[in-house]
């Protein structure tokens, strides 16, 4: 573990991203202690102030400190993205590995349903799902999890298929080991690496999806400081109060970029074929 981190940091590219990620994680965990102002309480008399020493990133249309809101939003975006992706990975891995191992008609049914899910454009499906479930941050996470599900199902299935051809699974079958045990003890642990790679590559995308949903008015409910929703409102202030959407957008960009670079780094680390 420590060695892997060392390896990540050694590369200047991933090293920078790793430090950013640590900062982001720190902010996400300790944001309530770090915000100079309440991210929620309104103050109409202080509305739309330009950035300055009191408000580093200025204030929004309700007089709230944008810096504080961006900090507080970190936890929401990163947390929900993690939750959604882990949920998708967990369920997808489970279904996919059984599908790949058992095969036959069950596999057919499951794979055709991923076909159906993949036929929807991701964002539109997420949009429709979060509209159907009602706009809330949890439902947005669920929608993203469902959208991402087929990727994990397919990945787990492909891996399960190839793992079930390995000699150790073949050996296990020669001592009469039950299917459940094979999936649990042999297949799932051994497909974790590609799943972890996929997770690390997907988190950035999930953050973007959440922000996009928020931008389109689904997802977090006000006054929650969700980045996409903040840009959606801030966009109207682009010309006269440029700081409002600009800093928020930069926050998303930097966070997603850090996750993506680390994702690439993890892939290179765990999947030597792609790296070396």
């Amino acid at each position, binding site marked *: 573990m420590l060695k892997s981190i060392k390896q990540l940091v050694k590369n200047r590219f991933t090293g920078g991203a790793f430090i950013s990620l640590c900062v982001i994680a720190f902010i996400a965990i300790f944001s309530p202690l770090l915000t100079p102002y309440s991210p929620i309480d309104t103050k109409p008399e202080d509305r739309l102030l330009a950035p300055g020493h009191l408000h580093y990133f200025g204030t929004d249309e309700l007089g709230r400190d944008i810096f504080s809101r961006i900090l507080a939003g970190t936890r929401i975006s990163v947390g929900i993205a993690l939750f959604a992706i882990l949920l998708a990975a967990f369920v997808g891995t489970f279904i996919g590995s059984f599908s790949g191992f058992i095969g036959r008609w069950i596999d057919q049914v499951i794979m055709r349903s991923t076909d159906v899910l993949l036929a929807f454009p991701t964002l539109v499906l997420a949009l429709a799902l979060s509209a159907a479930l009602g706009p809330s941050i949890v439902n947005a996470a669920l929608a993203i999890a469902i959208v991402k599900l087929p990727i994990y199902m397919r990945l787990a299935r492909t891996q399960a298929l190839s793992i079930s051809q*390995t*000699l*150790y699974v*073949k*050996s*296990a*079958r*020669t*001592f*009469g*080991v*039950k299917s459940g*045990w094979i999936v649990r*003890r*042999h297949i799932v*642990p*051994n497909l974790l690496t590609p799943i972890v790679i996929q997770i690390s590559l997907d988190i950035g995308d999930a953050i973007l999806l959440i922000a996009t949903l928020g931008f389109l008015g689904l997802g977090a409910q006000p006054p929650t400081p969700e980045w996409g929703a903040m840009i959606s409102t801030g966009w109207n202030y682009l010309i006269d109060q440029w700081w409002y959407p600009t800093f928020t957008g930069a926050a998303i960009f930097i966070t997603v970029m850090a996750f993506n670079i680390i994702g690439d780094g993890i892939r290179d680390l765990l999947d030597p074929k792609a790296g070396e």
Partner: protein
Amino acid sequence: MNQDLLVVSGLNKTFSFKNKGVKHENHAVKDVSFAIKPGEVFGLVGESGSGKSTIANLLMNLESVDSGEITFNGVTIADSKAQNSFPYGDIQVVFQDPRSSLDPRMTIRQIIEEPLRFLSGAKKTELGNSSDVVRLIQAVGLREEHLDRRPHQFSGGQRQRVAIARALITRPKLVVLDEPTSALDISVQAQVINLLKSLQSEFGLTYLFISHNMGVVKYLCDRVGVLNQGELVELASNEDIFNRPTHPYTKKLLSSVPSMFKEMESQ
């Protein structure tokens, strides 16, 4: 010693598969019959596509039999009609590639113990405690502290030893060795062959030894069957096969083996 441990009679297996809608058939095993006596090392040789691995799979209940019958210890364990209860633990297998036959995520202890988990009844109480594991790991020439390591920390030869220990944990009567040394270097191969020999006498094992390496078969086996394209073309004692082959295929096979001395003598 007069009753056969394993009897294979009239075994047939055909694989059919669809490739782009066209049905293909591959008659992998054609009417193969042989018997193995207790304590014997029985060799099956053949080239790729000869059906030797399919026979191993059929014996290990990994594939179903099309026709014919396999009898183990007088009990039918596989035929075309129905699924018979397979005597898990009594027949064990060691596969060719030790890199892939051990789950990389498990410790050596977990790997060796795994076959015990699904044995039932008498067999289970009869064996299967950690002292067995320790005894076996030592028997295959490894040390107790190796038990908590994982496969990637071992060389190919050591891994094959672990695979052998795992096969022996259930106290099998018959061990199927499917090309157990093909992936190993010469010097390591020698170690594993020596080990197999000493284990056989120590545990009174019966081996079905499957290989394409004529040298190893000649060295190890009491009787040898030669497979060619799913058919058993010759079955004889070691002596007869290597000194007085009768079937033209056996002859061709033997003459193809680059022997160190045949050529050098002619030089």
